[in-house]
Structures are given as C-alpha cells and as structure tokens.
C-alpha cells in the first residue's frame, strides 16, 4: 500500500494501482473515455488529466500513471477543467453530433461529458468526418464518423476475444478503426466491441432504433444458452426483451458475452412462440384450454412405469426437482432422463466413480490461476465461448501454458505458444491413457497416488498404452505425448478442460475417468488453479445432474426410453423442452419411437418438429418469464427473476408440474422458493442456499471429493476407409442446442448446417466453398453446404448438429466418429 493525497484527502492505494484506480477506490471521480478496467491502460483520450505536485504541476493522464508514495494529486483545478474542455472541443470538432438519430444517445460517454463540462460552443472549425458506414453485416453497424479513437474496440477484440478483427488504420487526421484491408467486418460477432465503445460508432443492429436507452427497464438475469452461466442484463420495454445491456460489473466475466448471449435473445419474444395448449383431434393439433389439456395429460400419467419422461437441462433446478417428484411419487416411474442419457455420463458416471462426486473439481475462475492448461478438443471454445475468453486472457496476460489435444485445430490453437496435438478422431482416451502411463513410468506421479484404490489395476491396464503404440494408432508422435505428460506433471498448478454435450458422444464416462486419472495421479485437484472442469453443454446441465434428473435405480435412460417407445414398453412419453428429433442421434430411430409411442406430450416454447408429433402440446415459459435457479458448469448456483410477464395462455413448467401433481392427488410446493428450500436441504453442496441468499450473487455449491483411480476403456481405433471421411459432430460457435435457431442474431450469421472438410479432401472431391454436397453414411444421407477449412486434417470432416433443416442426425447414429462419403 502507498499513501498519497488526492484533492487534499489522505488516501491509500495498492502499489500496482494507477492514479485513476486510487481515486476510484476512494470515491473520487475522474472522467475517462478510453479507459476500461478489463483492458490494459492505453492513454489515448486525455480526458483523465490530473495535476501532480511533484511533477511541477504538469498535467498527466491518471489512467496510465502508477501511484507513488507521497504523491499529491489534484483532479479538478480550473486549469484541468479547461484542458478537459479543450479535449472535448477537439473531439466534437469533426463529430457528426447526430444524437437525435444516434442509438447511443442517453448512454454515451461523449454526450455525458459534453453536458457535464458544458461544452456548448467550439472555438475551432473544421469539416465533419465523411467515412463510409459499414452496414455489411446484420449484427454490427460501424459508423466511424462518430468514433473518438479510444481504441477500446480494437483492444478488447485483441486482448479478451483474441480475434483481432479491428485495428487503427491510416495515420494522422485520417486515422480510423478498420478491418483487414479496410474491408467489411466479418468476425465471430461476440459484440464485445459494441459493449465497450463509449460512443455510437459501434451499434447492435438487431436493436437499432427499437427504443431509446432511457426507456428501457433493466432486469438482471442468467443466460439461457450454455453452461458457462454468464449473467445478463435484459433491456425491456412494453413487456418485450429488446436487447442485452452491458454491465462491466456483472458476473465473473465482467459483462462479457458471446454471440448467443448478446444477440440470441429474440426467441423470448418471437412471434413463433406457442400461445395456447394444443390437443390432437382427428390427427390435427387444435387449440384447447389448459383444463382440457391437463386433464388429458393427467389421465395418461396414471400409467405407472409405462410412463417415461425426457427433460431439457434448460429447465430450472426447481422445475427439474418438481418434475422428478411428479414422476417418482405421483406417476410412479423411474424412467426419466435428460440430455439423451449419455451427454451427462461424464459427470454422473465418470466423475462419480473417479472423484466420488458428479461435479467438476475446478471452477472457471481457476483458469486464470493455473500455470498449465490442457484443453481436450478445440470445441471447448465453440461450446463455451466466454470460458474461451478466460482461456485467452490466461494465456495472453498470465502466461499460462496451453496445450490442446484435439481431432482438429481451432481458435484456441492460434493463441501464443499454444501447442495443439491433432490426433485421429476417436483416439482421445487412448492418448490420455498413454499420458497416464508416461506419468507412471517416468515416476512423475504424486507420492500419495499409489495408496489410492484402483492404483494397481490401473497400472496393469495401462501396460497396453505405451506411448509408441498409442502414437501409431492416434497419428501423434510418441515424443509429443511424453512431453505433454512431463509438462503437465511438472506444472505447479494444472487444469484440464473438456466439453461434453449431445454432439460429443465420445466424451463419455471413460474420457472423464481418463482425464481424472491424470489429475489424481499427479495430485492436481482440490487446490486453487488445479483440477478437471467438464464443460457441460446447457445452461442447467450441472443442475439437472445435481437434481438427480437422470436414470437411476433401474430406471431407463434416454436412449433406452426411446427404444422402449418403439417396442411398446413405454406407452406415454412426456418431453419437457427436449427436441430429440433433431438433437438426439439417429433421426430414423427417434422418429420411429415418437410415432410408435401411444401418447406423446411435449411442453415447449415453440412448435418444434418434435412438438408437431405430439398428442398434447403445452406452451411454457422461457427463462425471461420465470424465476428459479440455474447451476452453471462449475456449480455456481444463480438465482434469477422474471424480466417480463408471461403470455396469458402460457404457464411455467413449474406450474404445469404442480397442476399435474395436484390432479394426481398429490401435494406440490407453493412456489419455486419453497421447492428450492427442499432442494437445499437434500442436495450435497446446496446446504444453506436459498433464493434470498442468492439474490445478489450466485454461490458455488461445494464439491466433496473422494478420489479413486479407474481403468478407462479406450475405444478401438478407427480404421480409415478408402474414399471416406471420418465425420465428427459438434457445436458451432453461434449456436447452442436447437434453441438458438429461434434467435435472430445467431441465425443471421450461421443460418444453416454445413460440413467442414480439409483443403486436400476438397481438392480431391472438387468441392469448393459453399457447394451443396451430399453426405452419406450407413444410416442415411443429407445435403449440406461445404466449408473448406485449414483447421481440419485430411480425412476428417466436421458438422454442427443444431439445425432442423438438413439435420445431421440423419447420417449420425451416435458413434463418436462416423465414416461418410462426401460428393457433389
């Protein structure tokens, strides 16, 4: 700590603080325009000038100057005010001043400062800027005439997003922010640049002219797409969510969002939302009253174990717990599951046996605290982009060493000094086992590991995985595997990340245990910056596991339920929010099951292709219309309240389940809060939490671990077939599950499915970018747009699974790797 005087006030500040930080810490406001606490100091605008007595009263920028002992600082002498006014006059000189039509008005730093400093005339005269405005993409408008050259957009895109789409181009008075070759913006559209721009240069086009900033009501919420659990501020007017608003103080991510969180909110107020219950009559779905619909459903639910249910892990913890209660106590069935039954196996089976807990042993903030980071599959960036930002910052700012084990390269591979080991698809467990074997062979294991249960069996089983054999199978070099093992073991704090979810059928319990073995063998878990983090796919995937909403005690799992629908074992199927027809593997099988089942009830926001097959469709609420809690992938339990009123004829899933419980003669908790009290009492790690205690900030639910070494079974190596490509299915950056198809933003930039192939395979098949190609496998064929990409190795292809049009599950039957032919 250093002592200094600011405006005659004795204050102290940390040694690393700048004058601006020190002032802010002590409640003294210094105006800024180019400074952002998330970015490195830059000093471009000179709004923050202050006088320091020791520097002979010279005016210096507060945002870049570190404090020193005994500094005497003045922040608002008449001279400084004059200087700041001059800065503003110069900024306004070429500025268009079109506040009446500028969407930033009301939230504009330049406007606010101009008002505050009463700059109502200008001593100088010059022409206004006349830059062409970039309307080339549907999400971000770039009007460089309003730019004040603070550089925040370029810096955030580089420092945090690590895309580097924007930079200063030209020099002197001609300087402006531009893209490559002064071309149109074409990036990952996270909108981070919009969020930090202090003026109206960068604007969100989906919100353009929809409302003025001051007319919006701001509601804090939690993102309803992926498991990162980012916090959101929704801008609401006339009961419609019109935009997301940046709040630099929100969440661990300081207001950063990805393209889905920032631009994917339109599904909430979509005109395609279901508005009334539908009941099938004469083979057509017709509108019905809630009473009628619930009566039919309740009657069908009396079938006991003939009844099965699939729920989406997008429901709240309260809803999932209540649904489970309905099924177990009132219906009398154990057949329920979420995420197709296998997508949670990494947690419910893998981590359960390896760590004795169905949750990850590390948290997202650990990423910034570790020394060494191993990411399995570059897709971790696409599935959890804001976790990706954390990785970017860890590598770029904290010098974390990044190694990636993946079947293709990806954005993370481009980070400084990142090492990507590209193995043959499907061989990740074998490679992880080889790493474990190297750790044992080279005596890199932690001393305590040998005493753990399963050590001897593991050592024996790993004999088959020496680096040379695995290297030959997986297409890696044995030396690289050994080096990775040595680096991981040598790192003080090391963390392993891997994504899981419906498209990642290879990320099973085996993979989870193989990963856990590394952490357990080297003792890198249960400490700060150490552990294994399974990035589960949906916003409440971890919650669904914590609520126990999956097959247990002899209940059928997701895929078994569908099987039983086909062969008559299940007669009534209740699907709450899942869309298996598109998101579960093997469309033909799923379709047959949904057709065969006697009675299908679907509660949904939209008439999805699955809902269209139902006998009863119940219109339910999105996260913006209900209250409850979501548990993020690192087990942060977060509470949110409704941002808008629900439609007159829609109910929350919570209400649906409690009405059904009552119709079946049971008793339901009065409110989500009461249900949460039950959850808190009975769920490991949730003790002491309540809606009230979670109101301001979420809380981590503790994970108690009892480690054990488990032998992970590696799949047999994939045999390459002449003329066929090894297709791996996954997530696209712009989408999450099938829900994002109803968000305009994601659909603007990624409207349809595609298949990514390597350059050499494209050349061999004479395939050019955007060609329509037919992709066929043993189960079927589908037409997809081709993308030719440098990141894909020869012989491999990648396709995202989100799209109802041209669904990839016609060719993908759930194997981690599918052999396909691609032809024009």
């Amino acid at each position, binding site marked *: 700590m250093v002592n200094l005087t600011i405006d005659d006030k004795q204050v102290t500040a940390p040694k690393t603080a700048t004058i601006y930080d020190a002032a802010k810490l002590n409640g003294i406001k210094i105006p800024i325009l180019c400074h952002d606490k998330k970015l490195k100091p830059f000093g471009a605008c000179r709004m923050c000038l202050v006088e320091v007595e020791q520097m002979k009263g010279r005016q210096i920028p507060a945002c870049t100057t570190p404090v020193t002992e005994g500094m005497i600082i003045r922040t608002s002498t008449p001279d400084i005010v004059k200087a700041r006014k001059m800065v503003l006059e110069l900024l306004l000189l070429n500025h268009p001043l079109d506040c009446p039509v500028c969407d930033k008005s009301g939230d504009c730093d330049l406007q606010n400062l101009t008002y505050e400093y009463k700059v109502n005339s200008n001593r100088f005269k010059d022409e206004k800027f006349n830059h062409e405005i970039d309307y080339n993409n549907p999400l971000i408008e770039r009007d460089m005439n309003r730019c004040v050259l603070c550089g925040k957009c370029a810096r955030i895109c580089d420092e945090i997003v690590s895309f580097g789409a924007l930079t200063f181009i030209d020099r002197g008075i001609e300087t402006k922010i531009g893209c490559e070759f002064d071309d149109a913006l074409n990036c990952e559209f996270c909108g981070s640049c919009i969020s930090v721009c202090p003026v109206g240069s960068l604007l969100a086009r989906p919100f353009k*002219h929809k409302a003025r900033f001051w*007319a919006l009501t701001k509601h804090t919420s939690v993102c309803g797409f992926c498991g990162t659990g980012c916090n959101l501020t929704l801008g609401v007017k006339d009961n419609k969510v019109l935009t997301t608003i940046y709040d630099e103080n929100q969440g661990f991510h300081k207001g950063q969002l990805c393209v889905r969180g920032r631009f994917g909110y339109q599904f909430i107020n979509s005109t395609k939302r279901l508005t009334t219950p539908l009941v099938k009559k004469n083979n057509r779905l017709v509108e019905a009253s809630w009473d009628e619909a619930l009566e039919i459903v309740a009657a069908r639910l009396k079938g006991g174990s003939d009844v099965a249910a699939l729920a989406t892990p997008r429901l709240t913890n309260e809803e999932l717990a209540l649904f489970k209660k309905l099924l177990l106590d009132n219906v009398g069935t154990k057949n329920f599951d979420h995420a197709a039954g296998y997508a949670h196996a990494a947690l419910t089976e893998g981590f359960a046996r390896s760590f004795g807990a169905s949750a990850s042993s590390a948290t997202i903030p650990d990423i910034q605290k570790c020394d060494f980071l191993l990411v399995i599959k570059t897709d971790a960036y696409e599935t959890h982009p804001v976790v990706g930002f954390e990785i970017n910052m860890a590598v770029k700012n904290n010098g974390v060493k990044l190694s990636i084990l993946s079947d293709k390269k990806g954005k993370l591979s481009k980070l400084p000094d990142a090492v990507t080991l590209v193995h043959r698809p499907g061989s990740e467990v074998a490679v992880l086992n080889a790493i474990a074997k190297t750790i044992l062979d080279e005596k890199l294991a932690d001393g305590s590991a040998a005493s753990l249960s399963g050590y001897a069996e593991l050592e024996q089983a790993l004999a088959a995985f020496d680096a040379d054999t695995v290297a030959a199978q997986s297409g890696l070099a044995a030396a690289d595997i050994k080096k990775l093992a040595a680096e991981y073991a040598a790192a003080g704090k090391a963390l392993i990340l891997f994504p899981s979810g419906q498209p990642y059928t290879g990320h099973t319990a085996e993979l989870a245990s193989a990963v856990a073995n590394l952490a357990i063998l080297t003792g890198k878990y249960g400490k700060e910056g150490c552990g294994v983090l399974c990035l589960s796919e949906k916003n409440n995937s971890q919650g669904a596991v914590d609520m126990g909403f999956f097959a247990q005690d002899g209940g059928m799992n997701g895929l078994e339920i569908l099987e039983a629908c086909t062969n008559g074992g299940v007669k009534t199927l209740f699907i709450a929010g899942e869309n298996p027809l598109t998101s579960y593997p093997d469309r033909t099988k799923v379709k047959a099951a949904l057709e065969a089942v006697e009675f299908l009830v679907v509660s949904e926001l939209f008439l999805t292709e699955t809902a269209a097959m139902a006998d009863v469709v119940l219109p339910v609420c999105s996260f913006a219309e209900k209250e409850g809690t979501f548990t993020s992938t690192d087990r942060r339990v977060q509470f949110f309240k409704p941002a808008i009123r629900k439609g007159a004829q829609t109910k929350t899933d919570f209400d649906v389940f409690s009405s059904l419980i009552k119709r079946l003669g049971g008793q339901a908790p009065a409110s989500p809060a009461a249900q949460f009290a039950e959850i808190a009492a009975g769920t490991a790690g949730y003790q002491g939490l309540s809606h009230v205690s979670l109101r301001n900030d979420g809380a981590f639910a503790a994970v108690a671990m009892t480690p054990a070494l488990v032998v992970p079974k590696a799949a047999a190596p994939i045999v390459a077939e002449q003329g066929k490509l090894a297709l791996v299915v996954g997530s696209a950056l712009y989408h999450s599950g099938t829900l994002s198809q109803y968000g305009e933003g994601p659909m603007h930039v990624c409207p349809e499915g595609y298949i990514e192939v390597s350059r050499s395979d494209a050349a061999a098949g004479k395939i050019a970018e955007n060609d329509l190609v037919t992709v066929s496998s043993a189960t079927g064929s589908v037409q997809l747009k081709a993308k030719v990409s440098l990141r894909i190795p020869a012989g491999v292809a990648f396709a995202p699974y989100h799209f109802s049009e041209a669904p990839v599950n016609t060719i993908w039957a759930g194997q981690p790797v599918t052999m396909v032919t691609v032809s024009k």
Partner: protein
Amino acid sequence: MNPITPIINGMAITLKHMFLKPVTLQYPTERPKVAARFRGLHALNVSHDKAKCVACYLCPTVCPAKCITVEAGEDANHDKFATVYEIDMLRCIFCGYCVEACPVDAVRMTGEFELANYKRQDFIYSKERLLEKK
C-alpha cells in the same frame, strides 16, 4: 351599506353593457381569431416531401401526459424515420413541451381547436392525420 346599493350597482353595469360592443362570438358563424402562439392541434412539419421527424423519441420522453407514441424505423438509406407517430388527443394537455423538445423542428402546434369527435378512436391522431397539409 344600504342593501339596495349592490343591486343598483349591478344594474348599472348591465345597463352600460347594453350600449357596448358585445364580447360574445356567434360561434360557429363567427370565428375567433387565435393568437399566433396558441397551442392547438399538433402538426408534423414537412421538408423535401418527408416528415422532418427523425424519431428521436424526445417528445414522448418529455410529454407529461405520456400521450405520444413513436416507433422508429430505418429507411432504404439507413436513415431513421418515424414509422409510427401518434398523439392521443384525449390525454394531451396542450402544454407544448413536445414542440420545445424537438431538436429538428418537426412538430408544431396549430390554431386548430375544434377537436370534437364521435368516437374515442378518432382522437388518436396518426402520422398521416398530423402531417402538415400542403
């Protein structure tokens, strides 16, 4: 005071007025002359064949009666314009704040004061009805 005096005074005033010019207007045959600054029905000013309004939302923001509805759109040249501009005359208090707030001189108040109508719906003046008549 004599109780008769006020009555006599009153009669005197009445008598005097019998010889003065009448102040009553024979409305509707006789029309009042409204002052230039009278605040009657609004009109949207036109320039280059378009409403001048840029849909900045300042008038609905300032309006104390919250009776102005503006919705903005983007035209082919990416310029902002009002797709909806409506004033609910039943709620308007004719304060003129909207005129004062407008940064582009797009709205003014005319001398029009005959605003009676048969249906409530007819008191909602749409953009077309408010556009300055040429």
